[in-house]
């Protein structure tokens, strides 16, 4: 056996000898690079008919806006294009795109037949002259053209970055109008980029803190409709709601779904004490998880449902704690100066986003689940209420400006701290909750 192996290796070595004889390769180590948006080009998709022309142009614009909005990509203006894509099947003139430094190219075509719309597209790595993945086609109704554009952008984003995508998602929030002391609040939902706003409640009572279910089909929120805060579950598609059964004379708030979507964590204030409870939605049975004399609130599950991060002032000031999902001993994870609140576990499970108040300023920050590597991403008069994008790369939050005429609005920021940008909404907005990716 040993002789056989020896002969085998000997033969291989002799075969390899000529190549080896050419010499050892020059070896260098590259450990410094650049971080900058990748230039890309999305020439208008090719319409198969005159009826598809407007859709083709608008879909191309939404794809570009999605990618540019991440801060990871930079659109090359069509004014700089040398090539014009007039046919989806025509060969790509890579030299023309290299010349304008387009590193990624998205070509596509749109077909409209009645109220049916289909989009097919390809993604190219210009400098290697190769296609990234395979061509795809999405089909749906013309009403859903924006969703199809988001889905194409999701494919581009994930194929180039390797991250999960987040464009085909929605955000629930509290729409605010009127002066600060007489603010009218309505529950609303929109596309992640601020388009297609729909209102889910009227402004007759105060609503707070909507939270999406893991499937994105339901919303939990707190309403003062009955005079005291109570938790409601709302079916997003049918816009039907029901109140969660909690004890009379108590205040329930800060709800959040468990990863299985069957149970709900919430805070319940009773006799001057606030603790965390868990309710089975189908039976209405509740279990108490904490019993400290301090205030425990803002619970959030880990993605695997095994642990809960929450806010408590048991040490004297609000800090963040982690405990097992069934209750038990909690471990403090925040030790910096200031007050910590509204912790939210990342969908990836590796980070916890939080609000921090220190020296008169509010921050949105992230830390590891053991509290290490805390990093503050924002600073303003009032930032609060972070929510994670479905891929765990972006955080959306509420920013309120100072003064009697101060307005609330939504902002998003990359977890690196870059690309801080406002999310446009028709009126003021607060308490965002980012849905999972739509199916």
């Amino acid at each position, binding site marked *: 056996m*040993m002789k056989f*192996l020896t002969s085998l*290796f000997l033969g291989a*070595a002799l075969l390899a*000898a000529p190549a*080896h004889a*050419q010499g*050892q390769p*020059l*070896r*260098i*180590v*590259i*450990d410094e*690079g*650049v*971080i*900058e*948006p*990748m230039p890309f080009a999305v020439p208008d998709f090719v319409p198969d008919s005159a009826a598809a022309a407007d859709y083709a142009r608008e879909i191309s614009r939404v794809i570009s*806006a999605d990618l540019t909005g991440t801060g990871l990509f930079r659109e090359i203006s069509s004014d700089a294009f040398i090539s014009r894509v007039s046919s989806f*099947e025509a*060969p*790509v003139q890579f*030299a023309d795109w290299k*010349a304008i430094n387009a*590193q990624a190219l998205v070509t596509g075509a749109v077909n409209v037949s009645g109220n049916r719309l289909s989009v097919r597209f390809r993604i190219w790595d210009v*400098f*290697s*002259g190769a296609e990234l993945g395979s*061509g*795809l*086609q*999405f*089909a749906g*109704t013309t*009403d859903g053209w924006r969703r199809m554009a988001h889905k194409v952008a999701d494919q581009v984003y994930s194929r*180039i*970055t*390797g*991250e999960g995508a987040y464009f085909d998602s929605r955000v629930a929030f509290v729409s605010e109008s009127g002066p600060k002391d007489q603010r009218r609040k309505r529950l609303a939902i*929109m596309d992640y980029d601020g388009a*297609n706003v729909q209102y889910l409640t009227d402004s007759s009572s105060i609503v707070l803190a909507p939270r999406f279910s893991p499937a994105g089909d339901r919303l939990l929120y707190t309403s003062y409709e009955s005079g005291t805060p109570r938790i409601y579950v709302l079916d997003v598609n*049918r816009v039907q709601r029901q109140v969660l059964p909690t004890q009379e004379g108590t205040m329930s708030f800060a709800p959040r779904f468990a990863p299985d979507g069957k149970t709900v964590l919430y805070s319940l204030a009773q006799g001057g004490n606030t603790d965390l409870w868990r309710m089975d939605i189908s039976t209405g049975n509740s279990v108490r998880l904490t019993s400290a004399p301090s205030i425990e609130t803002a619970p959030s599950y880990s993605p695997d449902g095994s642990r809960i991060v929450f806010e408590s002032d048991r040490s004297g000031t609000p800090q963040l704690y982690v405990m097992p999902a069934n209750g038990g001993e909690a471990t403090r994870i*925040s*030790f910096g*100066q*200031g007050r910590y609140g509204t912790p939210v576990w990342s969908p990836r499970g590796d980070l916890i986003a939080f609000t921090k108040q*220190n*020296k*008169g300023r509010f921050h949105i920050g992230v*830390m590891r689940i053991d509290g*290490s590597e*805390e990093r*503050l991403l924002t600073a303003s008069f009032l930032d609060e209420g972070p929510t994670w994008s479905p891929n765990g*790369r972006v955080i959306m939050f509420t920013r309120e400006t100072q003064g009697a005429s101060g307005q609330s609005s939504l902002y998003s920021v990359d977890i690196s*701290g870059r690309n*801080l940008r*406002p999310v446009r*909404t028709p009126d003021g907005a607060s308490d965002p909750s980012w849905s999972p990716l739509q199916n």
Partner: protein
Amino acid sequence: MQTGTKISAIAHVTLVGWALFGGTFRSEPLPFEVQDVSVISAEEYAALFAPTPAPVVSDAPSDLQEPPKQDDEVKVPEQTEVQQPRPEPVTPPEPQPAPETQPEVVVDTPDPEVVEQTPTLVQPEPEVVALPVPPGKKPKPRPAEKVAPQPVAPPPPEAKPDEVETPPVADEKGADTPREQQEQTAPEEATDQIVTEAEQSKELAPDRSPRPPSKRPQRSEPAQTAEVEKPAEPTKPVAEDKPSSSTDDAVKDALAEALGDAQQSDTTPSGPPLTGGEKDALRVAVSNCWNVGSLSTEALKTTVVVSVTMNRDGTPVTDSIRMLESSGGSSGAAKQAFDAARRAIIRCGAKGYDLPADKYDQWQAIEMTFNPERMRIK
């Protein structure tokens, strides 16, 4: 007597004359300088010799590091925001048309023919441009779209971003020879560190917890420890190791014998080796195009080793670029990391790397290790 007197008189006259006019016969005049002298007033004289104040050391970044039109209120959060176009007009509330709008069919479309053409644009050679770092305290990084190994000051507003810096040239009226007009170019502004909004206003808030990141007190769990320790490492039979090592030895011996002298003489490429400076120039050239900004967090933990064969003109053979190995991430992350590395090699080598032609044997085959570890902490 008269003759003696005459001789004496002539000798004395000659001696005295030589003493008086000997210097006249020097061949070279003494060197001298000519300076322009202008008349100045007493005030100007006083101002000229007034004591100059000592330079003030400031913690603030140098002027070159500042954006051109920043005012005093540079720490307002809106400064780093990116404007976003207004969303689409609000549609009236209506039931979600979810079932109909579900994209349903996924079809692989046929591969089109790919036509490759050589770029025809002639661009100047890339050049590394870096501002000198002032001595003493490191300048505070500025927020900029590009994060590079070395900070670059913002370009003049009228300059076109380019890899090389070119001064503007305009045709001068009345000049003897008309000069070709040239557009001003400057490198793109870059910082060397990501600056968050919170870090911009450091004086108002701390950026990190003072608690050390890794020194967290752990609750001792003796029971679990005991359980972990119980299943002791399985002791491998000695017999298992021996055959493999002896096989390795045998193979090594066989290889050494087979290759023999050929390995010793031919593995070293002919010609002088590349100098450290030449290697550094190549490394910097590739670094300038290695953009990790669009990589996933997992790909940023993945090191890839890439091989490439070079043409004699310093351009890489695109088809020869291969990933030899990867470490630290999944295969998907390795692919993303390799794609970024390949783009870097091709992009910055499009016009040929600046490599010595007489040492082609030394750089005909290159192995580049792309390690993003330092880029993660930017």
